[in-house]
């Protein structure tokens, strides 16, 4: 049996296109310091640091934990660097939790970041390799055909993606840290926005952000002594499958289904829509909400879009299972941190500490991240109670 562990401190930066006022270290440090302050701790209280980010090429700093040691108060301590593509923020939190759940440490700091303004993610993802077809059209180009296939199978109306785009931006307007602040966004505006990778429109895509997210995770004894309510980690799961293999189900990847089943089992969840109070799910293109609603078992296959259209996932429409109350990846996307933000926002909800985007009475929440060609999954369930 794993030891109990809980999130006792959460720190984030404001997400924005370019944090021109800080160095890379300064950005990472800001989130880490905020997490320590939130936990009422100082640097000496931390036993180890676990760092995550997406490819080093985004900032052009190889193995940045080496340079970030001093900013993260890690001189003389263990430092681990995780990289699992877009799911990395989630995986990093899970690896950090394992430092406590294994009984090896009592309190660790975990941080994930991306300073995308230092480069251009599209560039780093599209850098041509010899002998390959130079047709890499970025993440949108990869996911658009999969979305098209989802629409074909489910017969979903064309405005589902538009509705998600509006819903998550309205959620984001409640979250002062969100990059996009669009309280006035309309369906018409999204519909009329430029079609980038048909069927994905500009406003149905995530922004490119600078930002960092950090958490302090502690053992049971120390978590109970903290100044604020802990978010107890009730289940952790990761799954991977290859990017391309014959017969691969790309619309609803098996790795996502298995990962969800695993984390639900640990947390004692049999009906995720009923048992969970809210979810922070990695939705970088709006159509991924209905797709993940099905993949994660919130709706039967082919019917995820109905929940979206019924307002079930909307805070503003009083939905029963709000998805991405923080605004989600569609409102802020510092790639390497995006997964950890989902995990941290889930924790904020069950701590009752989510401000204007608090889901009333949230006791159990899902944090979700995915990466690569929708092949790497990381999920956790956090709760207000230990079990």
């Amino acid at each position, binding site marked *: 049996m794993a030891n109990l562990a809980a999130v006792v401190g959460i720190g984030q930066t404001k997400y924005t296109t370019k944090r021109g*006022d800080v160095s890379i270290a300064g950005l990472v440090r800001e989130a880490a310091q905020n997490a320590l302050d939130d936990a009422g701790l100082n640097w000496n209280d931390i036993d180890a640091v676990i760092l995550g980010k997406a490819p080093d090429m985004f900032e052009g700093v190889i193995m940045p934990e080496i340079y970030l040691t*001093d900013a993260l108060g890690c001189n003389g301590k263990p430092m681990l660097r995780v990289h699992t593509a877009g799911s990395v923020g989630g995986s990093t939190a899970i690896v950090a939790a394992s430092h406590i759940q294994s009984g090896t440490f009592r309190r660790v700091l975990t941080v994930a970041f991306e300073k995308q303004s230092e480069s251009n993610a599209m560039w780093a993802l599209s850098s041509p390799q010899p002998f390959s077809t130079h047709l890499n059209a970025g993440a949108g180009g990869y996911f658009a055909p999969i979305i098209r296939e989802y629409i074909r199978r489910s017969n979903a109306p064309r405005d589902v993606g538009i509705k998600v785009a509006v819903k998550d931006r309205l959620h984001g307007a409640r979250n002062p840290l969100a990059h996009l602040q669009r309280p006035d966004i309309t369906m018409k505006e999204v519909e009329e926005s430029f079609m980038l990778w048909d069927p994905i429109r500009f406003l149905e895509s995530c922004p490119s952000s600078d930002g960092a997210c950090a958490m302090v995770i502690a053992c049971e004894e120390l978590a109970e002594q903290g100044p604020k309510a802990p978010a107890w980690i009730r289940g952790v799961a990761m799954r991977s499958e290859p990017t391309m293999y014959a017969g691969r189900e790309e619309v609803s990847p098996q790795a996502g289904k298995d990962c969800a089943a695993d984390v639900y089992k640990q947390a004692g969840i049999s009906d995720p829509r009923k048992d969970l109070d809210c979810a922070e799910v990695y939705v970088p293109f709006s159509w991924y909400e209905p797709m993940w609603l099905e993949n994660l078992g919130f709706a039967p296959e082919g019917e995820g879009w109905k929940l979206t259209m019924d307002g079930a996932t909307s805070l503003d429409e009083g939905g029963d299972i709000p998805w991405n109350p923080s605004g989600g990846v569609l409102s802020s996307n510092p790639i390497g941190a995006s997964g950890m933000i989902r995990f941290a926002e889930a924790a904020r909800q069950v701590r009752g500490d989510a401000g204007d985007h608090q889901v009333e009475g949230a006791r159990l929440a899902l944090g979700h991240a995915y990466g690569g060609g929708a092949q790497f999954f990381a999920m956790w369930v956090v709760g207000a109670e230990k079990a």
Partner: protein
Amino acid sequence: MPESEILNQAFELGYTYTRSTGPVVGRFLTGLRDQQIVGIRASDGRVVVPPMEYDPDTAEALSEFVDVSDEGEVVSWAWVKHPREAHPSSQPFAWAMIRLDGADVPMVHWVRAKDESDIRCGSRVRARWADETVGFITDIAGFELVGE
């Protein structure tokens, strides 16, 4: 299985990153543009050049800037007989750890010397400023040996 040909192709991973510096790194680079070298005082009182943003021992954010000399002493050095293309000099040169006067912690930069035998630990060196200083580490176009 048929034998594979070996297919090679050169490629360049080239990109210009636009880095924001934050106040500490920015202050140092601004100093370089003005041909001034600035360090920062660590929690134990030592002056560190170039300035670190965070103290390695206490993890505290540092902020007390200290002007130091552009002249100092070689603490360690390595002789590059065959410079690499990326290196700052195409002539043989020395990488060095240099403790500037007024600083306690040596910095890594390079030293211009004709021959390996011209340099030793304890050699005095002075920054040679680039013709145009722009606020970049290469504003110091290497250090030159100072006659004793």
